């Protein structure tokens, strides 16, 4: 495409945009609303993912060792843990250390422990796991060791939760596709009105021998501008709303793992803007189809 033609297309697109007036505004608003809903969903999902990652990284299990456990047996257990890829880190906690830790946890009530003649606590191995799919089978596998008496099972709920979240991730993808399609249809329809308003011009272009791409160009540029402005509006709405909600939620639930890291948010917003541009382009392309050749 020649430079003066590109310049002409840009001028035409801006002119169409200005002449569009209310119609252009309606399209941008439609894009903004649809993308706000989509972006809100993306933010929700990103936060869920963030939370899951956080939980996954906190996976821990403790195995209690039998008092009667023999040295070679314990060594075998240590070797296996050392070479197990699922294990991030582990440490052996002696019964003495365990008693001290318990005393510290009990705080003022630690006086209770003074009544004990002997230390009732066993030696144990505290294991930090990498994110794994099957927490239960890991536990079962190690329970076979003679040296192991039992395990803390306090985090069984994490397993169920992770399965639930796996489900929500796959359904989230389906939801995302559905929302994306709905957006394309809504935006495509809004742009179709703009195209329809200028069908006479398109017809004349066609009849005087304009190539299909020549006819499309200003509309595609216009669609991209509309998509961009709509996406920027949606991003502004989401950024403000999320900022407000984030601060309130953190105040009420201090333990909630919300995304605060701004680079992550910026990436999400950039993706939304790109999506707006792509939808504007695609919407224009699709709505022009029946007016060409």
């Amino acid at each position, binding site marked *: 495409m020649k430079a003066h033609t590109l310049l002409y297309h840009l001028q035409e697109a801006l002119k169409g945009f200005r002449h569009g007036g209310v119609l252009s505004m309606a399209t941008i608003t439609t894009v903004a609303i649809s993308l706000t809903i989509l972006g809100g969903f993306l933010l929700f999902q990103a936060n869920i993912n963030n939370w899951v990652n956080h939980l996954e990284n906190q996976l821990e299990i403790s195995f209690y060792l039998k008092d009667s456990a023999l040295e070679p047996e314990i060594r075998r257990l240590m070797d296996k843990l050392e070479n197990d890829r699922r294990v991030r880190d582990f440490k052996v906690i002696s019964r003495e250390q365990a008693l001290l830790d318990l005393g510290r946890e009990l705080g003022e009530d630690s006086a209770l422990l003074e009544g004990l003649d002997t230390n009732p606590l066993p030696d144990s191995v505290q294991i930090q796991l990498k994110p794994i799919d099957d927490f239960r089978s890991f536990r079962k596998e190690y329970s076979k060791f003679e040296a192991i008496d039992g395990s803390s099972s306090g985090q069984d709920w994490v397993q169920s939760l992770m399965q639930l979240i796996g489900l929500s991730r796959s359904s989230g993808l389906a939801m995302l596709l559905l929302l994306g399609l709905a957006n394309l249809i809504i935006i495509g329809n809004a742009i179709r009105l703009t195209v329809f308003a200028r069908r006479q*011009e398109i*017809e*004349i*272009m066609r*009849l*005087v*021998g304009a*190539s*299909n791409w020549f006819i499309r160009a200003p509309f595609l540029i216009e669609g991209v501008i509309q998509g961009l402005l709509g996406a920027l509006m949606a991003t502004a709405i989401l950024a403000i709303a999320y900022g407000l909600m984030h601060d309130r939620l953190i105040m009420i639930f201090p333990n909630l793992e919300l995304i605060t890291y701004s680079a992550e948010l910026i990436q999400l917003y950039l993706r939304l803007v790109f999506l707006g541009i792509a939808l504007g382009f695609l919407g224009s392309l699709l709505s022009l189809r029946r007016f060409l050749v």
Partner: protein
Amino acid sequence: MIQMFDVSKAFPNGAHALHNINLHIEKGEFVFLVGPSGAGKTTLMRLIFRDEVPTSGSILIDGRNIERLSMTAIPFLRRSIGVVFQDFKLLPDRTVAENVAFALRVVEASPDEISNRTRSILETLGLTHKMSNYPGQLSAGEQQRVCIARALVNDPAILLTDEPTGNLDPELSLEIMNVLLEINSRGTTVMVATHDAQLVNRLQMRVLHLSNGSIVKDALRGTYEIEPNDESLANESEIITT
């Protein structure tokens, strides 16, 4: 230049617009396409610039079968054919100069070329003083001339005009016809669809007479005698268009 072999056109609603048209128009000819409204004149023209495709038969423009043209080649065919529409098809929000320049923009002519050729064609058609006016500010005759200017600015090999004098008084009609003859004298093949018998008979050019979608007469120095059933239709259509 324009050849049709057994061309028929039926529309999806069942209406038959053209039956077995065979014709041969040489380069540089001037042809009147006559017949009452509904005879198929407009359809025949739309087939030539491939706004429609025939249901059967084949059409050759400058030796090329235009049905076989690829999507990307169609615009190039249209650039070699100027069309003056019955309803002008001018863009109301653009000036006369912009409307004419539109046809040059499309072929990606350079800005200098656009301004020079637009100016020159508007001069030829006596529209220089109306350059900055909008179509709404022009008379029917002037709009007609803008439409002719736009059709000619690309220097097409063929000029198709559909009822170019349909909305004009006899004096203006003659003026437009003189413009078309002038263009033809420079080597452009010109086809004029009309049901203005007076005009056709005065100029004594080749006449193709269409009736109910068939060519009923093809005379080299022909006249147009309106048949009784033609006349009623012709009058009727005049009432509709005025």
